[in-house]
């Protein structure tokens, strides 16, 4: 056990950046995110006997984190929603790189998603888990995850005005398609 412990600690440290990014993106509140990560590490450590070596440690910890978050969300839904804007202001200093789509707009749009849609989109689109892995993390069917991701993307596109050509920063080929549609 004393031989195994240091490597577990090191392995846990390796997951912290992703745990923090996921927690922050999921709940949108720096303080809550910080608490979530700490609680996840404490729970992970306390239940380390239930982790199967060789399986995906990050996915295991993400499961703990999202379960902690969703159960706290059920307990105090109103309180959690009051933190609106926290994430947008935290990220306000991030450099603009990608066209005229505003980073703050994106963060605002992300907050409009339901928590389960946001979770699915983050795990698939940002973390790169497979639909099966996310289904296991979130405790539902892969088809459910797929549908949540699709809805999340459609809603984001709608909120960010990406369905409108003017806001798309459209390339020539897209413009051509639109002209054909309008003709």
């Amino acid at each position, binding site marked *: 056990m004393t031989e195994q412990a240091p490597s577990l*600690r090191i392995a846990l440290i390796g997951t912290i950046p992703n745990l923090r990014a996921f927690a922050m993106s999921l709940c949108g509140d720096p303080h809550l995110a910080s608490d979530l990560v700490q609680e996840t590490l404490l729970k992970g450590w306390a239940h380390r006997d239930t982790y199967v070596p060789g399986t995906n440690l990050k996915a295991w910890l993400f499961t703990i984190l999202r379960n902690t978050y969703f159960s706290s969300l059920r307990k105090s839904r109103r309180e959690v929603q009051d933190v609106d804007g926290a994430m947008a202001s935290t990220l306000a200093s991030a450099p603009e790189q990608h066209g005229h789509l505003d980073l703050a707009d994106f963060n605002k749009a992300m907050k409009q998603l339901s928590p389960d849609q946001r979770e699915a989109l983050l795990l698939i689109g940002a973390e*790169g888990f497979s639909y099966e892995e996310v289904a296991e993390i979130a405790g539902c069917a892969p088809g459910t995850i797929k549908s949540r991701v699709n809805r999340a993307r459609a809603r984001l596109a709608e909120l960010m005005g990406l369905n409108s050509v003017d806001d798309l920063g459209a390339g020539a080929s*897209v413009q051509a398609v639109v002209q054909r549609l309008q003709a």
Partner: protein
Amino acid sequence: MQPGGKDASREPETSGEPQEHNDMNQGIEDDTDLKLNSRAQVLIGQRLRTVYDELVQQPVPERLLKLLEELERKEGKE
């Protein structure tokens, strides 16, 4: 009702592969509506990863490193 519902019905039922990498190609062949939509999805994906990667790159707080050291030290005593 949901825009997503329409898209979901057009996507293949196979659930083995992450859809992410297929999104760009799907619909480009014949459906102009989906082509616009997939363009939007690419932009959304890029923005999502930009925001997320920035969060991932933030330094690990000293507090959490100390917490794990403490847990490990306690275990050693048990």
